[in-house]
Structures are given as C-alpha cells and as structure tokens.
C-alpha cells in the first residue's frame, strides 16, 4: 500500500545522497520525493511516498532513522494529514478547444498562468489523486509537458476531538 513519510534532517548533500542510496541500495520503491527547507535554519523536510508491505515500510522508517543526520521520521499514513502537490501542465490548445479546457480548469480550481496561440499552461494544486485526475481529463487535448513537485505533507493538528 501507499505510504507518505515525512523526514526532517540536517540539510547537506551527503544526507540527501544517503537517503537516495538507502532506497536504491535496499531496493525500496520511491513514487515521489519532494524536498525543501523546514521551519528552522539548516533543517530540511522531505516528503516521500512509497509502497510496500508492513515489513518493508518498517524497514524503510528504521533505516532512515539510523542515518546520523536525520532528526525525525514520521509515517503519516495512519494519521490524519494534509497533502498537496503542485503541477504545471502545458496543453495544446488551439482557439477552438480553449473554452473547453478552461472549463476543466475551473472545475479543478486550477489557474492558467501562460498562454500562447497554440498552448495553455495550467497551474494546479491538490492531492496526487486530483492531479492525476486532471491530467487524464486534459490528455485528449494533447499534453505537451508536465512538471510535478511530488507530494508535500504535514500532520493535521485539529482532529475534531479533544
């Protein structure tokens, strides 16, 4: 099953390579990986989505935890969490189909951020599922290029209880 794991670490290229090496060396899957600075200087947060049975996921989190510069590893999968991905999608769009595309854009609450006589570039945020769905809706028009960030995720704090 799919897991979303959040990793906080002291930012250095060596750490980044160690994380990537762990996955390639031990044959773990990575579906997506995204990385940026975290709330404190020198810290980075990585969100990665991966698949595997319980034992593999347990190994992944334990092996990540073993790396010296990693400060925290959280498997968000079984906790309430918010997840977003940003995608830029460039679609062929002759004037005749532009209106149709713009309708799809508004359904997905996306934005058009660039336009040319032959194409539109769409900015979209949402869960990976939403991004996938919108891409498949746009496919018939001809997708020229896409750029996706991969998921970023945080634990949801207010859980309706307490």
């Amino acid at each position: 099953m799919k897991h979303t794991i959040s990793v906080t670490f002291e930012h250095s290229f060596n750490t980044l390579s160690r994380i990537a090496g762990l996955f390639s060396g031990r044959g773990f899957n990575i579906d997506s990986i995204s990385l940026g600075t975290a709330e404190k200087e020198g810290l980075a947060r990585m969100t990665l989505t991966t698949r595997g049975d319980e034992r593999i996921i347990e190994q992944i989190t334990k092996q990540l935890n073993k790396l010296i510069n990693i400060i925290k590893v959280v498997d968000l999968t079984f906790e309430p969490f918010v997840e977003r991905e940003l995608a830029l999608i460039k679609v062929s769009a002759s004037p005749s189909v532009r209106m149709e595309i713009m309708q799809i854009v508004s359904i997905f609450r996306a934005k058009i951020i660039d336009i040319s006589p032959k194409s539109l570039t769409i900015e979209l945020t949402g869960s990976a599922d939403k991004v996938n769905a919108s891409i498949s809706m746009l496919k018939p028009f001809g997708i020229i290029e896409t750029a996706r960030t991969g998921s970023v995720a945080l634990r949801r704090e207010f859980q309706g209880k307490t």
Partner: protein
Amino acid sequence: MERAIVNKAENPDEKPNSTETGFPVQPENEKMSGGEILICALLDEGVDTIFGFPGGVLLHIYDVIYHKPELRHILIKHEQGGTHAADGYARATGKAGVVLVTSGPGATNTVTGIATAFMDSIPLIILTGQVPFAMMGNDAFQEADIIGVTRPITKHSYLVRDVNELGRVVQEAFHIATTGKPGPVLIDLPKDMVAQKGYYNRLKKMKIRGYNPVKNGHFHQIVKAADAINKAKKPVFYVGGGVNFGNASAELTELVEKSNIPVTTTLMGLGAVRSDHPLNLGMLGMHGTWAANMAVSECDLLIAVGSRFDDRVTGRLNGFSVKSKKIHIDIDPASISKNVTVDIPIVGDVKNVLPKLTELVERPDISAWLQKLDSWKEAHPLKYAHRDDTIMPQYVIEKISEITNGDAIVVTDVGQHQMWTAQFYKFNRPRSLLSSGGLGTMGYGFPAAVGAAVGRPDRKVFCIAGDGGFQMTSMELATAVKYKIPVKLAIINNSFLGMVRQWQQLFFDKRYSHTYLKDSNPDFVKLAESYGATAFRIQRPREVVPTLQKAMEIKNGPVVMDFIVAKEANVFPMVPAGAALYEMIEDEN
C-alpha cells in the same frame, strides 16, 4: 612485556629537532595546521596506533607524524591490508581502529576492508587524503569521490572543508563509530585544509542531533521477556557477535547459568560463552552442530541476543524455528523483525539489558529438554576420520586449540578452514575469534591478525588461513617482519579453493572448475623466508605438534607453518543451500 614494535625512524640521527615530546604543546588559543590538529585529536581520543600508507596529499600529515613518536604508525604494504589490520586491532582491543590512506587509489583500496567492518559492525576510522578542495570534482590527479564510493558501507562520513571544524569532526567520528551499533566512519581530508592553520576546537559535551542510540531496554519489554523465559519448556539462547563485541560475555554467562538454559552461538558469537560450558551446544547454522540446529528447530522459546538472523544462520526462512516464540535483544532497531518476525523485541545495549533480565528470571523446569539436548550432543558430536599418513585439517586445528589452551586470539580467513576453526577450536574467552562473518572476505585473516597482535601484545595470536585466501594479502608478511609482530600463521594448504571445491564436489559432480591451486601456488616456505620470516612445512601428522611447539617459542616475529593437508576433506555437518536447519546432512553418505 617488551615492546617489540618500534616506530622510530630506522636511524634516529636522521631526525632533525626530534625532541622527546615532538611538537611543543600548543597553547589552546594558538593556531595549528590541520595536520597537527588531526594528530592531536587522535591522541586525545586515546589512539596509540594507526595503520597507514603515505601519498601526495598526505605529506603534511606525515610530516606531523614524523615529529610525534607517541603516535605509533605502522606502515602497511597495501591499504586493504591496513584497513583489515585496523579492523583486527579494533576487534581484539575493543577500541576503534584507525587507518590513514592517500586520495584516489589509496582510498579505493580500503573499500573491501570498510565493507568487511561494516557488515560485522566494527568501529573503524578511515582517514582519507583528498585533492585540494578547489580541485574537487575536476577529475584531478588521484581524485576519487570516496565519500560517494563508500556511502553504503559506512555508518557515517565527513568531508572536512573548514580546518576549524576538524577537531570536532574527529571527536564526533569516534563517538559515532564506537557507540550504538558500531561501524566504520570515514573522514575525507582535502590537502589544502590539512595545510591551513586553524583552531583545534573540541566539544565539551558530545551531542549529535539525530543520533541518540538507545542504551537501556524498555523495562516493560524486559519483564515480558522474563515472564516468557520463566514459562518456557524448551528455551534456547541464540547468541551473536553483539555479545562478544559488546563486552557482555560475563553478563550473558550469568544469565545462562542462573536460568540454566542452553545456548548456541553464531560464528561471531563464539567465545561469548566458554566452549566447554555444559550448557553450550556449539555453533548453529550452515555448518553448525546437530544439537544446536535441532535445538533451534524444536525450541518453544528462542532468545536471540546480539544476533541478526543472517541467512547463513537461519537456513530456509520458512523452516526456521517455526515452533518458537521469539525474544530479540539488539542495539539496532532495524535488525529487529528484518528477516524473522519477533514477538518480544528489546532494543538496547545487551550489556545493559542482560543484567536486568537476569534479575527477573528464575530457573524454569526444563530437565526433559536438557536431557534431550544431551542425548543429541552425545549421539551427534562433531567428528572427522583421523588418518596416520595424511594430515587432516581438523587435526591441525584441534592441536592448535590444545597447545594454546583455547586462550589465543584466532584470526581466520574465509573458507573451509574458517568453519573447521569454528568447530574444532575450543574458545574460552570473548573477542577471541576474529573472522569476516558478514562479508566473507578472503584476504582478511593475515592482516587482521597483524592488527590484533599489535593491539594485544599480551595475547597469543594465531592466524588460520587457506592457501587461496592467504595469497590475497600475503604481502603483509613484510609488515609483520618489519615490526617484529609475533603472529603465528597456519596455512591449511589443501591445494584447492577448498570451500568452493566442496560445493563443486557435492552439487556439480566434481567438476572442479578453476579451484585447483597446486599448479600455481608458491612455495610458501620460501616465500616467507624471502620476507625474513621463520617458516616450516609440515607434511606428516606426527610433525604437527612438535612444529606448533617450536612456533610457540618464536616471539620476535611472525612464523609461517605450511600444513600440507588432505586435499579433498569436506566441512560437515552442513545445511545445503535452500534447506532448513533440521534438514542438515551429517556426512558424505
């Protein structure tokens, strides 16, 4: 005891300005070169010996070493040997081993040694020279991205760019290498950084964010484990290198004796409990004893201590100890439930956990189980057919065991002789069998024995090697001669790459493809003598003991014994690949 190893320049007169203490002591606020900081930091970590081999980017560091006789430097012949020597030193002493090598080829030559130490969780510090920082990444002369190359086989690594950081880095590296699950740590030292002047800064208190190995096991889990032990009818301890190299042999023996529960060890665990202890069943696994493998297969409680369920130990996984509840005590959370699902995990240092467990356990009534094990032991001892005309390899090892009273440090290479040593040497003390268990590195034995003998001049050190593996690092004989290191090398010379030949015999119809060595082996006696070592060739069983006696008397350097043994002897019992432990075969028939 006499210190046989000297590190002075051959002719002390050649040394300009050599004072007794070397460099004048630097006031704290005075700048030093990176090279000086490095050596001071090593000395402050309690390092007395390093193994090394110089090169262009190390000139500054070697100049400092030249002035610091208090740091003994052993010049090895090959960086692989140097790394194994540092590993042997570490296993024998319990301290981190240190190896210093130049950039590029010097650094890449350490890779096999690092991987060997990594697999067996041995604390090593690998100091690699590097091209000047500004040239890194330009494919400069003798540049290799050694941090990249060794990333998967080091516990951690550092590239030191700022000379003011070097002191702290060395301190952290030793801390990381020796605590938690120990392992190799590499420090890459660009040449310009080493030449620069800076401040030697040390941390007052060691604190590394993100690195907090668990020491004490969870008490609730320990109570659960004790409860399971007290209720067990057929319990057995399965002990690994974590006890041996975690200095917990006394604590384990106490627990074993209080609970009266039998114990089997892995290759790496041999010596953790005395071989002649009545509760010791011997080694388990691929070449383990019948009693040990059956005990593990039949038990209702398996208590794994500092072991990691390696495939050479478990045999076919779905046939491994299927009837048992499992307790696993280990410092490494990642090794728990990695291969085999465990019911009661305890993450912690075995040295801390075992005494707490001992307090809580009672003596479960398991007399029927003990009787059964005794009958297995009696009916299925380790055995071999002795011959009067030909030396049997097992016989040599039995005699080495007898003549040393099971008290020596025995370093093996990899192959049949390694398994025979595990079976027939009666280890009485912990940290006594040094062997590449995880990686299975041929060429490990002799240099590691050199390192062990350097670190423990108070103990007898034997190296037992095959005629194949010894040749992978035999040049370190020169090192042993130069520094008068009293290693006793027994070559179990069967004219074959024996372990591979055994598999070819048993599973490939005796098609001995590229395993015959006789037509290419050197004359080992002449080879040894050419290095200046004493050497004997032993061809008849009755010469074995007298030669060993002679060898025991040689104390001022290495001695090489070329034992010409039966060519096609096999290691038995054995669990064939893909079989379960209880499907083991006892002999050729």
